[in-house]
């Protein structure tokens, strides 16, 4: 069997990234959209860790830790925003977020 190269990880992260993008573009429920964004950020982390291992460089993993920390902060805010919105309008469907129109 071929040994696992960073190329394999690159393909995997690309797949996860794509899934995240598709999720953001096509789903209507805002919580699922947000989870897809988290998926995208994880794909970035896989990239960073794989490159870090191949380059024998700790910077990649440090960057990955920062990404995780930032993702946590963003998750807190994002869910807070969603909560605030829900309290006002009782929906989580982005099709119904249409007060601001053309």
């Amino acid at each position, binding site marked *: 069997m071929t040994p696992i190269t960073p*190329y394999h990880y690159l393909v995997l992260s690309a797949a996860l990234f794509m899934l995240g*993008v598709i999720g953001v*573009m096509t789903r209507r429920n805002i919580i699922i959209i947000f989870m897809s964004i988290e998926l995208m950020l994880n794909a970035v982390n896989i990239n960073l860790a794989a490159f870090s291992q191949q380059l024998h460089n700790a910077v990649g*993993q440090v960057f990955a830790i920062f990404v995780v920390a930032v993702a946590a902060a963003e998750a807190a805010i994002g869910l807070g925003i969603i909560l605030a919105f829900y309290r006002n309008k009782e929906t989580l469907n982005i099709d119904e977020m249409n007060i601001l129109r053309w």
Partner: protein
Amino acid sequence: MDVIAFYIFAAIAVVASVLVVGQKNPMHSVMLLITSFGALAGLYVLLDAPFTAVTQIIIYAGAIMVLFLFVVMLLNVPREEPAPPAVSALLGPTGIRIGVILSLLLGAEIVWALSRIGLGWFPQDPAAASVSSVALIGASLFTRHAFAFEATSVLILVAMIGAVVLARREH
């Protein structure tokens, strides 16, 4: 052995992610995302990054996803209504159609970009020392990247205050 482990974890991650994006029940989506993160943590271990793996489990799966779970249960998030029967889920209203096309375009670009690199581009060098030790990462974090580390503390403070501002009950 490593190879088989990679494929198993990768398969779990991808399948779980497809289901997260594809299936209708939000509670199941959260659980599946946790599974995916767990598989990714396994991959980090394979990549000689145990600290990142542990961080992934503790923070991502353990804190962020639990937060998601709280919100999903608090808001009683309903299942997404299925698309109208005449139209399949992929080819829905114009917005979704454009979204799907754009995503597929991005996907095609990624595939094309990756296919032009070829497997041989990243040379393997198993003899070199690994960088995984927590000591190494810690040293880097507190010396080379100390500024970014301190700056992140402000970000986290902002997130805390912001979350309270947005989500507290108004009297």
